[in-house]
């Protein structure tokens, strides 16, 4: 039986990252493994407790959203924290999950590559096959991209107008006296 530390690297406690993590937890629990779930954002406020949780674990699972093609800044802060305290790293396995709205894995993949780089800074032993997620990508025919873009943009703009927002309005940051 291994100790799994499941880390929600999203600011949302009940978003998609957390859902993926709870699916993981269900699977691990029914296999008789020990699991602990933490939410990274509040956990980073007590870094010592967080480090103790990492130390206790045999396996770390990070599940996070994709912001600007990789994990959000707080995940980097977490990796920085671990790098500054390498005594809590003793050969744990590390799994990463990253999810985002764009239907192409290449958009989000750099997040996983970054975790691999973190790994190599610590110790690199064995790396899983990326084909697991690459083959799972549901292929949207390229010829539909144009139509999808138009339809989705129309929906976005209609939703904004329904909320009384003019989608074409100038950015508040361009208005000198706005702030």
């Amino acid at each position, binding site marked *: 039986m291994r100790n799994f530390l499941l880390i929600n690297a999203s600011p*949302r406690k009940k978003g998609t990252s957390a859902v993926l993590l709870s699916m993981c937890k269900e699977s691990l629990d029914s296999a008789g493994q020990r699991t602990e779930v933490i939410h990274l954002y509040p956990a980073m406020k007590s870094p010592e407790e967080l480090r103790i949780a990492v130390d206790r674990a045999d396996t770390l699972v990070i599940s996070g959203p994709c912001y600007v093609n990789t994990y959000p800044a707080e995940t980097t802060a977490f990796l920085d924290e671990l790098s500054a305290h390498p005594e809590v790293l003793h050969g744990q396995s590390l799994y990463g999950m990253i999810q985002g709205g764009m239907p192409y894995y290449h*958009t989000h993949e750099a997040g996983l590559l970054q975790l691999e*780089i973190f790994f190599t800074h610590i110790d690199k032993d064995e790396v899983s096959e990326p084909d697991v997620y690459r083959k799972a990508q549901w292929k949207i025919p390229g010829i539909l991209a144009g139509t999808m*873009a138009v339809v*989705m943009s129309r929906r976005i703009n209609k939703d904004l107008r329904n909320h009384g927002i003019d989608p074409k309005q100038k*950015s508040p*940051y361009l208005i000198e006296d706005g702030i």
Partner: protein
Amino acid sequence: MITIIADESTGHVGQELFRALSEKGGRADYVSLEGVNVKPCMNCAGCTYTTFGKCVVRDDADWILPKIIRSDAFVFVTPITYGGYSFSSKQVLDKLALIADRNYHAHERELVKGGFPGRSFVFYAIGVSDNCPPEEADVFKRLHRETVWITHGRGKAFVIASDPDSTELTNIANEVTGK
């Protein structure tokens, strides 16, 4: 106008680039991330439904985002951190989505987003690292390339030492100013 956003833990690279750009007669603005506090994006959708195009949280993004949105190009100077941006750099990048185009477009048969409403993202990333392993340099460039792709923008990533010679900086200045 070219805005440089520099994590000064890289040393003087940001300031030297600013000097190189100014010497070429370009209009450049320099933002140091020293002491800057940009809070995490909490995915609250406040920048859509509460104050459209503007974050509901008050922090240093209030004066940084107006600079970025007025720039013809922006340059992030960051220590290469697990093949990506430093924590302080990524905190700013994580908030760029709120000033970006919310609509979808089609580009080479893929769904992409846009840059700024009405014009492109022109985004350069300068990764500072001494003796950067090639795999890590590749991740940094890949990460940047993915952002340029999804914003349907342009730009380039560079990997340089913390003490670059003047020809390297001149080359970068030339690229950034489009000469």
